């Protein structure tokens, strides 16, 4: 797919000679496909940069996108795809920014209808294809990293440890508790126990749709770890269907206190710590 030294030279010459026209036409073509979602000035700057990078890579002799001399061009292409991916453009819209160069080259070579021009066009065009694929790959990579980032953020979002009373922290678990999340929950809980000096922790599983042996094992391990640090754990939010499933599965929570609701668990802890809660007597009319 690489261009020969002569072809590269001709490509550089062509683009350099008709620089203004190339950039103008290229910007127009890309602008039409993006339908005004990117400012003309911004687009023109990007196209200028690409144009310059292509010429520089072509001047480096035999032109190949994988080669050393095309490093700058690769960086520009990667930067372009990253920007487009983050701004929410589609893969097609991103790739068109590069493929538009083909149309421009065709228009430039049309005037010169020789065999060499035709062969050059075919060679240039396969190079543009290569650049397009590279753009596409960078685009996908950026998207993938965005998704990975979001998954990580979600992991953090979904595992708050809250202090609900003096010496009592609670972990409301919501959704699927897989190994990765269980690990985060355990770390957070243990750290919060240290930070707040709490002797009690309530693990609330109201938001966990199904408690299977893996989830139970994760919870049990967390409880054991908390106990090693001297804290007592109460599991709350055990709904009737979960209770029946746990019994049928044969999971035993041993001497760990379990409660139907978070309120029950808190009341249990308060009683253990000797806090009395009483409704205030309505003041008597005198």
């Amino acid at each position: 797919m690489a261009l020969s030294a002569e072809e590269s030279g001709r490509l550089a010459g062509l683009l350099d000679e008709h620089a203004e026209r190339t950039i103008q036409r290229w910007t127009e073509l890309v602008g039409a496909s993006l339908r005004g979602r990117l400012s003309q000035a911004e687009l023109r700057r990007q196209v200028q940069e690409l144009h310059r990078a292509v010429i520089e890579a072509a001047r480096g002799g035999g032109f190949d996108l994988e080669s050393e001399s095309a490093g700058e061009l690769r960086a520009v292409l990667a930067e372009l795809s990253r920007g487009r991916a983050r701004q929410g453009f589609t893969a097609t819209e991103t790739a068109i920014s590069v493929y538009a160069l083909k149309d421009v080259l065709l228009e430039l070579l049309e005037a010169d209808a020789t065999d060499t021009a035709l062969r050059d066009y075919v060679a240039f065009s396969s190079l543009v294809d290569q650049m397009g694929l590279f753009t596409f790959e960078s685009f996908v990579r950026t998207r993938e990293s965005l998704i990975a980032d979001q998954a990580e953020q979600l992991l953090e979002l979904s595992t708050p440890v809250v202090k609900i009373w003096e010496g009592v922290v609670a972990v409301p678990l919501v959704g699927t508790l897989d190994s990765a999340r269980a690990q985060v929950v355990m770390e957070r809980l243990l750290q919060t126990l240290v930070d707040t000096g709490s002797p009690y922790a309530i693990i609330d599983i109201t938001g966990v749709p199904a408690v299977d042996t893996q989830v139970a094992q994760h919870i049990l391990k967390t409880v054991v770890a908390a106990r090693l640090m001297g804290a007592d754990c109460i599991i709350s939010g055990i709904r009737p269907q979960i209770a029946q499933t746990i019994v049928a599965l044969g999971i035993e929570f041993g001497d760990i206190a379990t409660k139907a609701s978070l309120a029950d668990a808190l009341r249990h802890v308060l009683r253990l710590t000797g806090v009395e809660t009483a409704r205030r007597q309505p003041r008597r009319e005198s």
Partner: protein
Amino acid sequence: MTAGVDLGDPQAQAIRSDEDVVRVRQLVRTVAVAVRLSLVDQTKLVTAASELARNTLVYGGGGSAEVSTVDNGRRRGVRIVFADDGPGIADLDLALTDGYTTGGGLGLGLSGARRLVDEFDIDTGPGRGTRITVTKWSR
């Protein structure tokens, strides 16, 4: 072995990763809601499916789950077939013993799943892979 006519197309889900176990769970819940299993039975079936799907992944090296609805004339139900081409189970009685595990879990998955469903059929042997069929009927 089990009576009942299939209703509608069975839905298959490949089991290749932990995310697929979650997908199986979601699929089973959708079908269980569609045949109107009670909330308790839904939860039991989903939990059993979760156990068996994870076994398929961890011990069978991946496989598939096929969820279908069945009808025996009086009641409707959900049938799930888990299949893998893994090493199979050499000693089935031992594998079905509470607390026995070769993988570091609680050792309750297979035996517990059997207690959570109405019908449980297992076809396995060394080198043959494992095929487990479970059915839960509406009440």
